[in-house]
């Protein structure tokens, strides 16, 4: 790799990292605003114009709180827990294609940190590592509520990862590739996967909620019965890291869903726009930039949906959660695979 490329990659990775953190920070703000609006309130509005500095104030508060480690806890693991959660959460956005390619000065710049042909597997691997953060934290706290929260987190993630993977297989059967970029490219224009995989998408969506520990599946941290679950013993910025990791996970889940089912950076009438501009390089750049905007619009809509659902639905009971995962979602996902296979065979037979 040329040194210019390396430099560009470094800048791009830093930019993505920064954007991820920024979006996660402001997700907390929007979460509170959306919660307030849904409950006919106005939400934070004192810190800065329209309360926009609220996340900074929150972060400041978390930083200056006492950093407490319980006496009987396992100190190393206690510190490691939130670190793992945060690290894993920020790692997963590396393979997501946020845009097509830009051409600057004859250089082709791909708007994706790492182009790997196993992007989907990478995401899955990294996301399933995320539960280690919760497990380690819950275990190290030496508190039965934390432990119960950690156990719930682990069993919930395992159960729902199965259905998630199965629903994904249907997409992979259609696209024939594990590379997120290729999956994105195949959905050019308005040819999005959601039109072919509505059932798969719903399964994936439900599982994404469970993987992110969001309501209605926020059993690992259910305040009512577990007083916060795995982060009961945490305070200060360690708690902040856990909460932050949750929001980053939401961002990544939204990005993955947009990529897999909603055409990533593709938008309707893309080719018309490309042809409307005579200079091919300029046309390419314009289309790419609009594509980036489209991608982020989709991501934000998904984040909004996550929050909207949180302030609408109550929490599942634990047995209901397991029943939904094993007895409903997994069979449905298998059915979806069979239907997709049938569809592909039919298409091959007819054309």
């Amino acid at each position, binding site marked *: 790799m040329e040194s210019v490329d390396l430099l560009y990659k470094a800048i791009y990775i830093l930019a993505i990292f920064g954007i991820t953190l920024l979006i996660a920070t402001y997700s907390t703000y929007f979460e509170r605003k*959306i919660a307030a*609006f849904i409950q*006919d*309130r*106005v939400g934070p509005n004192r810190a800065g114009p329209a309360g926009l500095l609220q996340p900074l104030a929150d972060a400041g508060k978390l930083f200056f709180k006492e950093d407490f480690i319980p006496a009987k806890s396992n100190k190393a693991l206690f510190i490691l827990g939130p670190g793992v959660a945060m690290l894993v959460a920020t790692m997963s956005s590396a393979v997501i294609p946020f845009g097509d390619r830009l051409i600057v000065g004859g250089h082709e710049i791909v708007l994706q940190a790492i182009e790997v042909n196993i992007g989907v597997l990478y995401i899955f691997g990294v996301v399933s590592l995320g539960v280690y953060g919760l497990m380690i934290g819950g275990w190290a706290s030496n508190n039965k509520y934390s432990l119960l929260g950690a156990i719930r987190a682990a069993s919930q993630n395992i159960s729902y990862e199965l259905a998630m993977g199965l629903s994904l297989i249907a997409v992979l059967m259609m696209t024939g590739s594990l590379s997120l970029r290729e999956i994105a490219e195949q959905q050019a224009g308005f040819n999005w996967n959601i039109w072919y995989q509505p059932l798969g998408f719903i399964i994936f969506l439900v599982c994404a909620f469970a993987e992110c520990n969001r309501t209605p599946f926020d059993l690992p941290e259910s305040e009512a019965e577990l007083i916060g679950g795995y982060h009961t013993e945490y305070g200060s910025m360690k708690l902040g890291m856990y909460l932050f990791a949750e929001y980053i996970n939401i961002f990544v889940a939204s990005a993955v869903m947009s990529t897999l089912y909603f055409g990533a950076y593709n938008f309707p009438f893309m080719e018309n726009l490309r042809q409307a501009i005579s200079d091919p390089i300029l046309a390419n750049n314009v289309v790419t930039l609009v594509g980036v905007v489209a991608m982020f619009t989709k991501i934000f809509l998904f984040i909004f949906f996550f929050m909207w659902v949180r302030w*609408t*639905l109550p929490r599942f009971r634990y047995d209901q959660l397991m029943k939904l995962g094993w007895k409903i979602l997994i069979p449905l996902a298998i059915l979806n695979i069979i239907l997709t296979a049938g569809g592909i065979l039919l298409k091959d037979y007819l054309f």
Partner: protein
Amino acid sequence: MEPLSNRRKQVEKKEMTFAERAYLPAIAQGLSITLKHFFKKKATIQYPEQTRERSSVWRGLHVLKRDEEGRERCTACGLCAVACPAEAITMTAGERKVGEENLYREEKYAVTYEVNMLRCIFCGLCEEACPKAAIFLQDDKIAPARFERDEFIYGKDRLVEPLKTTETK
């Protein structure tokens, strides 16, 4: 048993339909309800800048009135303290000395007069009990939040109406 009213209804447990068991229609309905609230007018009143409109008979912070010549009206009869259901009022009475006629209207006056705002329920019975029209609950002031309990015991310094220094026509 025979029902006393004919409003009794037989409760039955219906099997859920498929749509009900599938969760999703109900979830969609719930989401539409919350979305409607998202765009609704908000009920919040931005407190320090805006205040809720009060009724004309609203009872707020007490005031000890002066008469037209600026003399305190209260004669320390204690009727307000007796009437008070919350026992929020305490006072000590004193005799007016010669030369103090411009300060107190009656021969007996309240040397101290305290209302404990933490006890007071703002019922207004003190106002009704007073034979001298000396105590009133103002309609525009409230007892603000404070950090110490003793600061809620309002003495004469904070209860007595300030002297009007300039003559208003």
